[in-house]
């Protein structure tokens, strides 16, 4: 596992997100209202919308294109929609965010 420093928590707007360009493609880094950070591939399973631009609430991100809801802990779309996004590990050290460049496999 390769861990990359992304920056600090305050660089991500709370209840929103940013994206990171990586050799594995674009990865959305999302921060919720409790300052929990999630990393998933930056492509909605529906039509590829950039999840980094969605609303984040609790464990959910709402895709900005057609409002699909993606569960960030499961990496799955919320029913009735279905589809998956890749999840990536995040480690916090104080304010510093680290991204693991390897997909989490269930």
């Amino acid at each position, binding site marked *: 596992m390769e861990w*990359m420093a*992304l*920056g600090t928590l305050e*660089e*991500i*707007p*709370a*209840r*929103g997100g*940013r*994206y*990171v*360009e*990586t*050799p594995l493609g*674009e990865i959305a*880094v999302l921060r*919720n*209202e409790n300052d929990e950070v999630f990393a998933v591939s930056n492509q909605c399973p529906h*039509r*590829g*919308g*950039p999840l980094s*631009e*969605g*609303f*984040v*609430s*609790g464990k*959910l991100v*709402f895709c*900005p*294109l*057609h*409002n699909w809801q993606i569960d960030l802990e499961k990496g799955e779309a919320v029913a*009735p*929609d279905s589809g998956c996004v890749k999840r990536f590990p995040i480690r916090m050290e104080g304010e510093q965010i680290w991204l693991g*460049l390897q997909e989490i496999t269930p």
Partner: protein
Amino acid sequence: MHTTVSQNPRLVVVGNGMAGIRAVEELLKMAPDLYDISVFGAEPHPNYNRILLTPVLAGEMALEETILNPLEWYAEHGIQLFTGNPVTRIDRVKRLVISADGKATHYDRLLLATGAAAAMAPVPGNHLPGVMSYRDMADVEALTRSSALGGQAVVIGGGLLGLEVAHGLRARGMEVTVIHRRAWPLDKQLDQRGGVLLQKAMEARGVRFLLGKETAEILGSAHVTGLRFSDGTEIPADVLVMTIGIKPRIELAQAAGLQCETGILVNDTLQTYDPRIYAVGECVQHRGQTYGLVAPLFEQAKVAANHLAEYGRMRYQGSVTSTKLKVTGIELFSAGNFMGGEDCEEVTLLDGSQGVYKKVILQENKVVGGLLYGDTSIGPWLFQLMRDGTDVSAFRDNIVFGETHLGDAGHSGENQAARLPDNAEICGCNGVAKGSIVKAIREQGLFTLDDVRKCTKASASCGSCTGLVEQLLASTLGGFYDSTPKKKALCGCTELSHQEVRDAIVKEKLLSVRQVYAYLEWRHPAGCATCRPAVNYYVRTAWPMEGLDDPQSRFINERAHANIQKDGTYSVIPRIYGGVTSPAELKRIAEVAERHHVPMVKFTGGQRLDLLGVKKEDLPKIWAELDMPSGHAYGKALRTVKSCVGSEFCRFGVQDSTRLAIELEKNLERMWAPHKVKLAASGCPRNCAESTIKDMGIIGVDSGWEIYVGGNGGMKVRAADLLCKVKTHEEVLEMAKAFLQMYREDAQYLERTAPWVERIGLEKIKATIVDDANTRKTLAERMDFALSQEKDPWKEAVSGRLDIHAAPMRRIPA
């Protein structure tokens, strides 16, 4: 013997039917772990959909298909279920319920949902074998067995239930006669004209009627053989079904010393006289009313659950109900006062040959009741008008033709969902066919529009097929479908409506989305994609100076100040006032487009230039190089003011529409609104700028300007209404500001001017801003103040004062 004691308080539910279980479901949504729950039911089945008794009786469905909560559901939620085991006694002192098997169960809270029983006519012979009721699955099973022998069935009582059972028994091959005391069937739902039409239609299906007949005695010794009427005549009967009404089951509550009249008395929180005991459903009496339809029961369940969950916020204030008959092929709808009376006016339509009869009762230009027979497509709409108390004066003459005659186009013009084939596409946005919607309603036990949206996505996007989906709900659920909740919650995060949230923001001076969520106890502390933009808009409109604009509560377009496209790129539309540009400006735009290899340059529908396919990262650079203000083409905001050439060049023009368009655009740019706002100015009545399909459109005439409002040319075409006529540009500007400020302050988020004008009525708008110069002036001043707080977002971004997060957070090289 007591049940095992755990640390959670115990909720015991008496009654395993639709009302009780719905309350449990609502409770689990709010407070899944608050109680240990036990449910006692008299019937042997898990909770099934009682609405579907008639399809089961008619042989169109099987019992299994009507189960709403299978046994696994109870197990999954840790609910102890006792079927076939009614509660026989409540000991309020020791807080125990005693069930038929002798078991005593302790409760901390008790929910009574005992439902109602069939009322039996007090005539000799009413207990003979062969005399049946029609209330539950056991009745359906008994009737199915009896009908297999064929013969004569007599139904006493020509109400909704009576006609449904008659239909079901006829479908099973019996000879059926309906006995009714009044002169026409369904007299509680129909006037005589409608009743006669219904009678004819039922007779055509082989059901006989004996009207104006009073039953005196049921004949037979070992089994029913017939009945005698008070006039001495007799008819034979092998099966007799009593459907003269229902009576709430209150014996248990009464014996426990709870106050009862017709039903168990409850207050607005569904609490009985014993504060530990709540009651919902057909067994309760609330403000003197008892209910037998499913929609009110569900409303009650929601409120009771809210209090059981210790939220303590909601009140049940009674329900307005409508009914539909569920006999295949007979369309019938009635609601409210359908008979009319003094101070009432009627609008009717009667087409005897087609079997169509519609009657709408109006009182002071509001719908107070209605009756539809043969074609009920306008039912949900009419019911909505009735509940909202909408002023219908603008379209009262055409009201019986429905909304479709008020300028619909496309989908919403379709009004006969029931007749469409199963593969017909209902929702064009999400590609949902009629068949899948109907299947979902049946199999997953859906009752409301929201349920259908959640489950199938139908009408969850643009919403133009909402009417069709409502019709499918109505035709699939029949008698018990209730079109819309009385009060629409803003979203799933709160019980409060748009207006209630808005009022609180003003009254409590709530200055940010977070404050609103905290103060109003939002269910999700960060809200959802529906409430965040709405609440942010309400905060900004109420408090233009102090209110905090939360970028994370704006849709991506308004956060990036550009329009996101399907591939994640953006489009850039600079503001070109009135559509008037110059060679130098055009050159500059062309050069920017070339330099950045913009894939497409296109004119928009609103006469502006669009640079499409721009990467987010390039946006600030392009804005800097264009050096033009934002066109706000991406926002719920003032878009463009479209214009024709006008008197400056045009040989027909009588007014300078181009100059007016520029003035309007300069006066109103940066205006945020509940939805997008499009304006137009035409220089003569030929109206080349199409002012009559704009949110606000101006048309020049020889003596000045005509101002039109509430037009729309998009999803649902609506011709604008003439608001007033003025002489000068200054008057146009003031009127425009007043109208748009009124819209900004009053309309719901995402409500365009067209539906808003229809909802509140043109007369009210005229009275506020045309007839009242003071209000007009203060509204215009408030608009000016709000706009003075807004800066050009592109300049802000270029100067570094606004960060749109254009670049990735980090680039990790391979």
